[in-house]
């Protein structure tokens, strides 16, 4: 760790002490922020994990029903039937501030009613497949929202921890070292001054005696 290079005088000493105080205060604030972020983060993990497990299971089940529909109708007929939909505006995005981390919140609009395909050429099981997919779709979006929040919080926690560590293990020890160094230099100068004065006094006294 490179030491701070400063002039050993009282002015610098005062400046350094002030910097030390600011660093200490910053360290405390950041540490509190880190604790709070961590709390927020850990609270979200369990729920997200559970939601993912559920959503994955339901999605795989829906794929299974689609495979049956594909088998019954034939690949081409199914592709034609499913080509009917058009992309819609499904989301309303809002922004929420959690410990100065901006995380998105999605509000899901009503999903359009699947349809528009010929009921004559498609099997009944396609309706079931689309229903099950429509059932899982809003939760897919919720999952995306939760995982994004976790991702953003994780990034912020990493950044904050770096800052806390830099203050705690680099800047504050450096300042302490510099403050101690200046204190010692000043004491040394004080002592040398004192000895010089004593010596001068001795010489003057010796001259007076002669």
């Amino acid at each position, binding site marked *: 760790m490179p030491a701070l290079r400063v002039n050993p005088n009282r002015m610098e000493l005062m400046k350094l002490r002030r910097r030390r105080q600011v660093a200490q205060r910053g360290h405390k604030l950041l540490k509190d922020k880190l604790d709070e972020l*961590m709390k927020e*983060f*850990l*609270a*979200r*993990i*369990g*729920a997200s*994990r*559970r939601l*993912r497990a559920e959503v*994955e299971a339901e*999605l*795989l089940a*829906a*794929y299974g029903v*689609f*495979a049956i529909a*594909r088998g019954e109708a034939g690949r081409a007929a199914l*592709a034609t039937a*499913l*080509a*009917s*939909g058009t*992309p*819609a*505006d*499904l*989301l*309303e*995005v*809002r922004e929420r501030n959690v410990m100065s981390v901006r*995380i*998105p919140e*999605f509000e899901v609009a009503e*999903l*359009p009613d*699947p*349809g528009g*395909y010929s009921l004559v050429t498609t099997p009944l099981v396609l309706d079931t*497949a*689309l229903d099950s*997919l*429509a059932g899982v*779709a809003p939760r*897919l*979006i919720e999952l*995306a*929202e939760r*995982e*994004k929040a*976790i*991702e*953003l*919080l*994780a*990034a912020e*926690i*990493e950044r904050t*921890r770096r800052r806390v560590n830099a203050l705690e293990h680099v800047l504050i020890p450096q300042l302490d070292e510099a403050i101690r160094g200046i204190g010692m230099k000043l004491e040394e100068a004080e002592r040398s001054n004192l000895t010089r004065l004593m010596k001068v006094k001795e010489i003057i006294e010796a001259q007076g005696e002669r």
Partner: protein
Amino acid sequence: MLPRASRVAVVGESTSVAGFRPLGFSVFAVEAPTLAREAWSELVGGEYGVVLVTEGVYRHIEDLVVARADEMVPAITVIPGAGSTGGVGQARLDAAIERALGTKAFIREEDG
């Protein structure tokens, strides 16, 4: 100002994602996973708030997804594709936990 980001995109093999089209999702059916790379700039351009990527495609565009980790939208999430084993999304969650805690902490199921 927030981008509108009002749409939901699904990127994946056509057998997995075709069913999302009637639900109003924007479907990017890519026959070769590398084609997702070409559609990427459109996907992250601000029109989409949520991008769902199947595992098969995610494997080929992981670097692109990771590069967007610090952006608020789109929220990119991995979903299992038809016939894939799952677990990639869980692994991403674990990676985020590792990033935050600095260690692969063992977090019990009942937590949270």
